[in-house]
């Protein structure tokens, strides 16, 4: 489904963020990308979301090269991906309900669909009571659950989660990971970037380990070893 082929990303001043990375992700797979801070995890996800362009190599999504997507077609491509970020990236001027509904609005869903689906998803992530609250009125865990709700509401093919537990305590972290696992079990491909050892070791799923931008390990049932 997703294929990284000899992908290199070099930032100005010759800073190599990702160096000749090659790996594939199958449909409905749960892949964790692990590494220390600065190992290139976030850059890898940014490249997949076409937020950055690779300096060398190609990334394929469902057989199509992301590099060749024209700027005008980027919104359409991104609607096939749900993204969860460490800093939540919720729209501060919109309520929880409006934030989640926004992902449906951009794909042109009808008002009826929005009225039907948003409360359901908010219920799944346990935010029914906070539907009319603005992001600044939510706790870290609630913000992340709202971000997950927004990422999955339009049923994307794949969800990218970049350090989703980075700002959360262990209790809330566990809740978020359980939620992501549930989403993957329902049939969504999931790529999780993290440096949380306990979480990776408890998952028992595929782990791709990065160091200095290079893939140093790719195991089917991996553990956090650095």
């Amino acid at each position: 489904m997703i294929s990284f082929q000899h992908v290199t990303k070099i930032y100005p001043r010759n800073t190599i963020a990702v160096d000749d990375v090659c790996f594939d992700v199958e449909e409905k797979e749960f892949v964790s990308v692990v590494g220390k801070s600065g190992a290139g995890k976030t850059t890898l996800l940014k490249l997949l979301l076409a937020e950055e362009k690779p300096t060398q190599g190609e990334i394929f999504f469902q057989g199509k090269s992301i590099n060749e997507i024209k700027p005008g077609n980027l919104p359409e491509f991104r609607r096939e991906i749900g993204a969860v970020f460490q800093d939540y990236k919720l729209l501060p001027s919109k309520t929880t309900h409006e934030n989640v509904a926004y992902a449906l609005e951009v794909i042109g869903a009808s008002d009826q669909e929005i009225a039907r689906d948003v409360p359901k998803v908010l219920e799944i992530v346990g935010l029914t009571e906070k539907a009319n609250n603005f992001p600044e009125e939510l706790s870290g865990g609630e913000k992340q659950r709202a971000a997950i709700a927004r990422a999955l509401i339009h049923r994307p093919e794949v969800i990218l989660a970049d350090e989703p537990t980075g700002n959360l305590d262990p209790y809330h972290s566990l809740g978020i990971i359980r939620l992501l696992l549930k989403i993957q079990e329902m049939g969504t491909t999931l790529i999780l970037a993290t440096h949380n050892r306990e979480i990776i070791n408890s998952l028992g799923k595929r782990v791709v380990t990065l160091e200095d931008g290079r893939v140093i390990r790719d195991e089917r049932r991996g553990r956090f070893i650095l």
Partner: protein
Amino acid sequence: MFTSLKRVIRSGWQGFFRDGGLSIATVFILLLTITLATSLFLFHGLSHLLISSVEEKADISLYFKEEALENDIFEFREELARISEVKEVKYISQEKALADFTEKHKDNPVLMASLAEVGRNPFLASLNIIASEPGQYQAITDFLETSDFTALIEKVDYYQRRSVIERIFSLTSTINRSFIFLSIILSLVAILVTFNTIRLAIYNSREEIKIQRLVGAGSWFIRGPFLVQGVLAGILAALICLLTFSLIIWSLSPRVETFFTDLDISQFFVTNLWQIILIQFVTGILLGVISSFLATRRYLKI
């Protein structure tokens, strides 16, 4: 399409009221610019009105010697009327001049007593000449100097008022030139200030625009609400400006009229109301929309 438009308008409307502080700042800056545009329009219109009223008062009066025959004066009048620069020539007989004077000063016993003391009609017959254009009086006076009828003329009033008239004309053309220059400079400053204020307001939303982009929103879906906010700010600023100007004109009009009797500013305001409304709304909305469009463009390149 219609659903997207509805969502864009709703989002812009919500954003305008939720970002209250920024919206007020934008409206205030737009208000200053619209006020400037309206002031320039009013100043231009009113100064023209004032200038033309002064220009209308400029004329040449030819006073004829007492022995001049009325038929010769009529002949001279016809000759003058044939000159292209002359708009109108009016004959005022000795009797008419006396009657006008008596009518005008009938309540002034000193003047009336002096007139009675003279014992005869002291007024001279005259021709009053008005030129088609203010700058054409010189050409008319040149003609008078070469005419066969010059011998009949006792005095030409234009020569006595010449310096004043020429000063008025030079002043009005200077005012017009300065006005155009000032308008261009002030308009540029106002546009730049407005653009920068809106750019700063949108700069605050750059992270939000980035998020919308990453969620898969198209350029117009992101930009649309900002344009709607620009339109709302423009409309609100134009309304406030219209109301303020109406109140100012209404309260100042009687006072201005005591200084310049020919200048009815409230009449001018009412006559040009649609044009003023158009200037205010077009300035406000266009500035709001164009500034929002340009300011969002740079953050949509993700």
